[in-house]
């Protein structure tokens, strides 16, 4: 391109291009149009040699060298090239940083921050979930903020020194069995948001952040439930084939919304009642602590699942059909399995009973029966909020896995 008459001057004093001087040159060139000239002056002994090499690399021309390239005072005229302009031709903004996320996130935006100017080219991200309707809930930013503010340290949030020695041995075994079961469930609840996260377009960053905190929450739950189970020094409880089968159907759920629906709305929603129950009947302070802390986190997970599912169902009524099918499909898949580990059920009865006396067992049995009723009522309430008519909500709640999660 022909050089124009306009000439700017920038002086580097004794700064070399090997110690940041190129920043001053680039800054001065940025103010010019391609073809315009910049005179670079300086006293660095190798300025001329450095500048020639730097200009070549960046597509600028050295038009004129006054004096020797090596010497006490150098003055070099540079004609700005157009490579920089060419690089950014075709660049687009990845949505609006301050505004709502776009209805559709382009794969070509890749990992760019929302609102960044994205150079054309580079690998598409290949995210499976790249449409707002399929991942979003308006409450997601607030839930993320709440999650970030509510992170707790398992080492200090629980009084691990509180004695469990006074808990009768058989009650303690019941606690250990329930904790063993909880760990298994929390591991599933960790893997699912992590998997959804890996396939989510990062343009929906609040959802990404929320799922990350959800996975981190479950990691803490796995830790504290494991630690409580080991507190009395005995072996862990049992893991039933039916319970694991039930959880594994969740891992296999391919769709973002149905996975979120089955896990968070139905599974974790049911777990809220379970954790409250264990907390209320905890025979020791540690058991009460770990369930109290977990239930706070789970409430956020349920809130996002419900809000997101309702958001999608509100924009697409037909989607309720897909949700219904996902419940029926999971029910069919689990027809031939035992569902809840019988030892978990018995342990819950014993926890609520507090002893083996017939009267206590009757009370415990009734308490677990009441728990199941509360779980059912909660599921129906959430299903109705999402948009299911009451009769259909009752029907779907009844099809929910006997394994609770």
């Amino acid at each position, binding site marked *: 391109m022909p050089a124009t008459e306009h000439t700017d001057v920038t002086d580097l004093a004794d700064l*070399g*291009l*090997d*110690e940041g001087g190129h920043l001053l040159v680039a800054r001065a060139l940025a103010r010019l149009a391609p073809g315009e000239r910049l005179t670079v002056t300086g006293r660095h*002994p*190798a300025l001329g*040699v*450095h500048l*020639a*090499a*730097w200009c*070549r*690399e960046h*597509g600028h021309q*050295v038009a004129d060298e006054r004096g020797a*390239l*090596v010497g006490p005072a150098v003055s070099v005229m540079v004609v700005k*090239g157009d*490579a920089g302009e*060419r*690089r950014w*031709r*075709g660049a687009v903004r990845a949505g609006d940083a301050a505004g709502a996320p776009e209805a559709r996130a382009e794969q070509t935006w890749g990992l760019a921050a929302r609102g960044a100017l994205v*150079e*054309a*080219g*580079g690998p598409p991200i290949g995210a499976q979930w790249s449409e707002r309707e399929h991942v979003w809930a308006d409450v997601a930013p607030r839930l993320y903020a709440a999650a970030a503010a509510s992170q707790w340290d398992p080492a200090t949030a629980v009084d691990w020194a509180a004695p469990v020695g006074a808990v009768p041995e058989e009650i303690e075994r019941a606690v250990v069995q329930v904790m063993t079961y909880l760990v298994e469930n929390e591991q599933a609840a960790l893997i699912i948001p992590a998997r959804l996260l890996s396939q989510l377009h990062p343009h929906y960053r609040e959802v990404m952040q929320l799922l990350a905190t959800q996975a981190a929450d479950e990691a803490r739950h796995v830790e504290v439930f494991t630690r409580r189970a080991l507190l009395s020094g005995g072996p862990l409880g049992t893991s039933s084939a039916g319970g694991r089968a039930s959880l594994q159907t969740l891992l296999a759920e391919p769709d973002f919304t149905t996975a979120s629906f089955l896990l968070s709305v139905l599974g974790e929603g049911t777990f809220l009642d379970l954790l409250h129950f264990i907390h209320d009947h905890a025979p020791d302070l540690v058991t009460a602590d770990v369930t109290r802390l977990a239930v706070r986190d789970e409430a956020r997970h349920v809130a996002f699942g419900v809000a997101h599912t309702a958001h999608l169902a509100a924009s697409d009524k037909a989607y309720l059909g897909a949700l219904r099918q996902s419940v029926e499909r999971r029910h069919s898949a689990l027809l031939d399995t035992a569902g809840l580990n019988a030892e978990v059920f018995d342990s819950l009865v014993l926890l609520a009973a507090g002893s083996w006396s017939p009267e206590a067992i009757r009370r415990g049995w009734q308490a677990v029966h009441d728990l199941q009723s509360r779980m059912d009522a909660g599921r129906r309430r959430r299903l109705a909020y999402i948009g299911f008519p009451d009769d259909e909500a009752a029907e779907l709640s009844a099809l929910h896995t006997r394994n609770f999660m």
Partner: protein
Amino acid sequence: MGVLLGAVAYDPKVVTIWDGFRAWLREHLDFDYVLYSNYERQVADLVDGRIDVAWNSPLAWVRARRLAAARGAALTPVTMRDTDCDLRSVIVVRADSPVTSVGDLAGRVVASGAVDSPQATLLPLSLLRSAGLVPGVDVAVRRFDVGVGLHGDHVGGERDAARALFASDRVDAACMIDSNLLLFGREGVLPAGSVRVLAQTPQYDHCTMTAGPSAGPDVSVLGDLLRGMDYADAELRPLLDLEGLKEWRPPRLTGYEQLERAVDEAGFYSQDGEVTAADYRP
């Protein structure tokens, strides 16, 4: 017809570059490429007509020209990168060195790149000769033979030569291309303010894509296509960045006479293009 191009695999990225260019060029031209482990075999194959075009170093151009001329054949330069224009080689010394002129290097040790590096060995040693110092006689040369056969495309020899300025058994001066002086400064191999440029060659042009005797009319199509590559094209830009250019330019052989002279002084190739350097084994 079509065009078969040879390129030297001095780095794994060469596969990425030419695979990418091949895919793009084949939309317009029957184009393919082969890779060589060293420039000498590529040059021989170019002159023998086994490849139509060679992506040649300047030293490879010199040898190919001599080999072709000996057979009464001619070569045609096709294109070059914008970054191949107006390079210089420099000889640097430590900033506190008592050496202030090339002549002061008499009796001292100079580090160079690989035996076959035009920019870090042949041209700077020619610069010494022009000041009256015969390498190996008046001045000792410590050569850093990294990537022999790659004509200095591998930066390792130059970097080792630069490091030798500050090694325990240190040399008095080191030879390198101007862009590597800047690179080594920014890498910290040569800390800021640690060296002084003692001498520099006149400007010269570097790599040249060269058409051989088997090249047909499609070679000019290839040249047009390469020169038409637009840095604004998001598909091509990563490849152009890897290859180190913003645009392909019409070919130029400015300053090649410096290298022809350096080759003769060093006895590197004979006039008819045979390899005559005794200690060169690509």
